[in-house]
């Protein structure tokens, strides 16, 4: 009996730890550090129907306990992702992955989703309606509940695998967004994407990031993510894959208590390439300390105090 195993639509996770999209490339880069087969799944780099170079440099800045990025969805396009990137990943990874699908129009999302969902390595889609760093589309779908619902329906109609929708924290009412995509047929929710922020050069006052704004991530946003996951868990029945500032095993326990069924690790991978492996190794030890027999027993346990 694997006490770390979690069952989710499209995903039989041996453990709930998943590198978050955009912080782990297409996965194989990390096999220079450790055997990545230990990962529950992998959320691969956001993929669009056409290749994208992304934003001009600088794309990265720093903050206290976190970082800003404005990559702009750089990726080689869905055809190359399927024929090259996933084939390279197949050599070193033998579980289902979650394909992050992005676009700037409904047609783009649908075309990309219908293609990539046929790949045998893809167990689920993560519909990226919350990237703050692209000008057209993306975030518009993530801030308007009706648009999010329409897009979810359209992608569900063509996808061969379950569809999770990735929510943005940059909204007034994230619960309304979650309810809208659930009603539209989403199989799950992933949350939260980055918080929009800026940094300026001390001497010149010029924005450090060429795109001016970027998405803030890292330990600083952890409590924000917890609160939003807690709220959404109360309002929907579909499972949540939680993310936002997770850096160590204790964060995983906390996030699952708030309502996450699995947990994605993002920025921590960039600072410590071994972050996911360390968390997976530490989880059983911490579970013993906390008298947790089976990890799935703690999902949403904080709500007993509601």
């Amino acid at each position, binding site marked *: 009996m694997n006490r770390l195993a979690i069952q989710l639509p499209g995903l039989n996770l041996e453990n709930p730890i998943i590198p978050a999209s*955009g*912080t*782990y*490339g297409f996965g194989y*880069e*990390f096999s*220079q*550090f450790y055997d990545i087969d230990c990962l529950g799944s992998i959320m691969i*780099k956001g993929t669009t129907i056409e*290749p994208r*170079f*992304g934003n001009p*440099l*600088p*794309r*990265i*800045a*720093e*903050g*206290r*306990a*976190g*970082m800003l*990025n404005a*990559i702009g969805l*750089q990726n*080689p396009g869905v055809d190359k992702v399927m024929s090259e990137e996933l084939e390279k990943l197949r050599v070193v990874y033998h579980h289902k992955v979650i394909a992050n699908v992005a676009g700037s129009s409904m047609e783009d999302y649908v075309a990309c989703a219908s293609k990539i969902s046929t790949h045998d390595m893809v167990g689920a889609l993560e519909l990226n309606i919350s990237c703050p760093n692209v000008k057209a589309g993306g975030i518009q779908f993530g801030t308007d509940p009706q648009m999010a619902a329409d897009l979810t329906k359209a992608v569900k109609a063509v996808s061969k695998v379950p569809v999770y929708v990735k929510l943005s924290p940059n909204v007034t009412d994230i619960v309304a967004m979650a309810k809208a995509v659930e009603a539209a047929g989403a199989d799950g929710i992933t949350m939260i994407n980055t918080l929009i922020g800026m940094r300026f050069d001390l001497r010149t006052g010029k924005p450090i990031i060429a795109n001016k704004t970027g998405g803030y991530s*890292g*330990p600083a946003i952890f409590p924000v993510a917890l609160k939003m996951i807690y709220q959404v868990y109360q309002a929907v029945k579909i499972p949540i894959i939680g993310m936002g500032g997770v*850096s160590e095993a204790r964060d995983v326990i906390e996030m699952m208590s708030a309502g996450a069924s699995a947990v994605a690790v993002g*920025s921590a*991978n*960039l*600072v*410590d*390439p*071994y972050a996911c492996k360390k968390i997976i190794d530490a989880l059983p030890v911490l579970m013993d300390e906390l008298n947790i027999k089976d990890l799935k027993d703690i999902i949403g346990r904080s709500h007993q105090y509601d």
Partner: protein
Amino acid sequence: MEKQGMMTIVSNTPLAKDVYEMVLKGEAAKNISAPGQFINIKLDDGQTTYLRRPMSIHDYDESHITLAYKVVGVGTAKMKTMKPGEQLDVLVGLGNGFSLEPIKKALIIGGGVGVPPMYNLAKKLAAQGTTVITVLGFNSACDVFYEEKFKALGTTYVCTMDGSYGVQGNVVDVIKKEGIEYDRYYACGPEKMLDALVLFDDVNGYLSFEARMGCGFGACMGCSCKVKTAPYKRICVEGPVLKSSEVIINE
């Protein structure tokens, strides 16, 4: 061999205005496979300096790495205060580095904090019998460092923008003025200097670039740049060294 390791600070001493040399000791040094590769340093608990600091490698052997860094922000200001005996968490042996070709005459060019990574390359070229000529550029006399080290390897010119030391002008001015001949040039320095070198000779050069990086090992796409030979290259993996013939100059 694990690319991540703990290295112990052996020394940390001033070299020039705001420039310090740090010598590190540890097994991780074995991961370096070519001059021009870099290391990525984690400085603390991730509060004010959350991301690692990518730093060029000045010199190395089986168990030592020497860095030279300029204090420009909170991270390097913290490095300046570190004492011998303290440990640093480092990722070692990142990037492609310079390849050693059997050439007769090499021109080594370093600008400011781009000077340090050129030394180990120059040393290895000289050891294989290549004639090494060096041009070092700085802003002012107070910024000059490592001149003697390069002089020990061959003819070395120093220039400063304000003329307070050596020849007045930039590195391209010196190359033209002295009529320096070479089979290959190798350079690291500010982007303006590298662009000027590509405009001067886009056939025979290898140039080492820097960029703000999220990870330093190819995961985040934070440092991608457009090149003539591919849709893009990541400065941290397919760089930091690019051929002059593939560099696209940013306007």
